[in-house]
């Protein structure tokens, strides 16, 4: 993250210098093509959030003018923003993609998973995700995780090996040398692949602006009924808010990340265009997750523990 949006710097560039966005784009495309060449059944985790939208955009570019050789998988917590679901379905239809859905609600209805007292469903996504990977025999699963997001992710590989229980063992990860990714795995194991490993939040937004990628509207400032919990603005809804003592008010807000409604906080904002969003992020003094994710604040080791269990 930086506090200023960078300008072109003359003098350090040769005619062969790529801009940082071009370099990151080229690297991500290389990763998508590598997986297409080496795996049988790859799938892209697609939530309708900006990182998964970016992944899909890069994948489309990597294989143009042909269709992308992957399907999509949405782990549906049941607490989705309507705008995001609508966006998801529109994109799937527009590109003729195949969408798999793993539903947390379904697991709760069947009594396999229990609703948590705090109503948060993010931690409940792991089981539906891993069982879907097993039943569909996906051998490569693209995730939008970035290494700048959280300390436990700083050590994540681009190709991250998972065992048959989807578990991540930091000591079993392979060194990644040059750009020679090693995707070999035993039957039943799979590889999580993170094409956006080296992107930062600002890179993602700058690239979205440069490419003119359309996003769900909740990423831009709008009026919404919210209430405060744990220092964050949460959207009122059937998922369990507001509780007694929490008051709903109308505020001008936007979302920096999009996840389960119960733990995705909004920030006060009047940024209605991509340019304004970028300026706001560049000036922000809080990391994306620090500002907006209650579930990552649970403990210093929360993310590490969830990754070990097979979380994204």
């Amino acid at each position, binding site marked *: *993250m*930086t*506090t*200023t*949006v*960078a*300008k072109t*710097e003359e003098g*350090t560039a*040769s005619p062969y*210098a*790529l*801009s*940082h*966005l071009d*370099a990151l*784009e*080229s*690297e991500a*495309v*290389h990763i998508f*093509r*590598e997986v*297409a*060449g080496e795996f049988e059944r790859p799938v892209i985790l697609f939530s309708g959030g900006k990182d998964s939208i970016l992944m899909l955009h890069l994948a489309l*570019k*990597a*294989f143009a*003018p*042909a*269709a992308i050789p992957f399907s999509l998988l949405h782990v549906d917590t049941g607490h989705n923003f309507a705008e995001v679901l609508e966006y998801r379905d529109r994109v799937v239809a527009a590109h003729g993609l195949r969408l798999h859905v793993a539903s947390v609600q379904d697991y709760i209805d069947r009594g396999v998973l229990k609703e948590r007292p705090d109503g948060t469903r993010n931690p409940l996504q792991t089981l539906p995700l891993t069982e879907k990977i097993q039943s569909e025999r996906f051998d490569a699963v693209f995730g939008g995780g970035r290494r700048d997001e959280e*300390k*436990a992710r*700083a*050590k994540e590989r681009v190709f991250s090996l998972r065992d048959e229980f989807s578990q991540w063992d*930091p*000591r079993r*990860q392979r*060194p990644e*040398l*040059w*750009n*020679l990714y*090693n995707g*070999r795995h035993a039957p039943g194991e799979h590889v999580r692949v993170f094409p956006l490993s*080296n992107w*930062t939040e*600002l890179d993602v937004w*700058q690239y979205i*602006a440069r490419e003119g990628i359309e996003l769900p509207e909740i990423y831009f400032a709008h009026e919404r009924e919210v209430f405060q919990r744990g220092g964050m603005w949460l959207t009122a809804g059937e998922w369990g808010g507001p509780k007694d003592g929490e008051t709903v008010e109308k505020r001008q807000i936007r979302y920096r990340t999009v996840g389960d409604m119960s733990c995705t906080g909004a920030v006060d904002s009047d940024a209605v265009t991509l*340019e304004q969003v*970028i*300026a706001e992020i560049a000036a*922000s*003094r*809080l*990391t994306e997750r*620090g500002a907006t994710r209650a579930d990552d604040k649970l403990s210093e*080791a929360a993310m*590490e523990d969830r990754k070990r269990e097979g979380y994204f």
Partner: protein
Amino acid sequence: MTTTTELSATTLLRFATAGSVDDGKSTLVGRLLHDSKSVLADQLEAVEHASRSRGQETPDLALLTDGLRAEREQGITIDVAYRYFATPRRRFILADTPGHVQYTRNMVTGASTAELTVILVDARNGVVEQTRRHAAIAALLRVPHVVLAVNKMDLVDYQESVFAEIAEEFTAYATELGVPEVTAIPISALAGDNVVEPSATMDWYGGPTVLEHLETVPVSHDLAHCHARLPVQYVIRPQTAEHPDYRGYAGQIAAGTFRVGDPVTVLPSGRTTKVSGIDLLGKPVDVAWTPQSVTLLLEDDIDISRGDLIVPSKDAPATTQDIEATVCHVADQPLTVGHRVLLKHGTRTVKAIVKDIPSRLTLDDLSLHPHPGQLVANDIGRLKIRTAEPLPVDSYADSRRTGSFILIDPADGTTLTAGMVGESFAAPEPVKDEADDDGWDF
């Protein structure tokens, strides 16, 4: 603070750090992130909180770069962690490698993608065995730029003579190994001298701070001028009504430049044709260069698949089944003569067998131990390998992407070994004249 909303077009520098905890490496990295305003309020708050709970009075910047619980508990760092920061002038990806026992393979991993390495020494100890090892790894991996950060200058009263002596000794050693460029900078990571802000105390030093140097060092594009190489990753064939005959060969240009009209040869088949078009992610272009991901269109319908290499007809590498290389062994199980492995080179993976391990190299003094019989984790050595099929390898000295390979265990997929084709070290560069340095006459 200015914010502009115009799109940035800064370059990207990938660099690595080498040094031990005792040299103050975590503090240097923490300082770079902190002073370049890359540490955000919530991260700093977490560090302050953790420092207090450990009974430390000031925030321990080293905590910014501790990742996993095991490391926090043991106070060590395992493996390579990647950090991201930016200034108005450049975006940085830092491969932060730990400096303790298992560090060789981690340093090799970090250096494999780095265009610059920062090697840290403690001004009180000067060039020690470990410093020589770090220099040797940077030289082996052919990292184009090396920075020697002489840290803890505050503990030697900021004396110029201490710095000059260390800088001279290191530069002589690195030059001997063929490191093309060394920049020495006197710093105090703890006090912040010459990391981001120029030192108020060391007015005898006229060169750049660490960050200024990182911002201005030329991002290496020599690769655009050497042999053109495109390892084919994937064949794009839409077979739609709109594109009935489109056949594109997709890959990331590993070295050099391709132009429309270039006569090219496809290896290993040896068939020749011409480049009829270049698709740069959906946009037709006349020319493309490393590291762009492109799709090449060719005049003739040749049978080409993943694993093939497209090269200029006038500049094709020889193919061989016998590879000699310098390797770093990165797996816990040893590598022995007779070991059957898989070798991944570019986009091609072939069966191979370890024919001989002529020598093991001790990094401390660069001594060679003939016929060690096996290499264990973190060993560097020479290797002779026979592959099941001919491979078009370049010398690593010419091309880091097409001169490198990895060995994989066929049984469980473990990455065993990192390999660099050809000679270990570059021939020493002639010592530069003083006009080329930052005012230092070494």
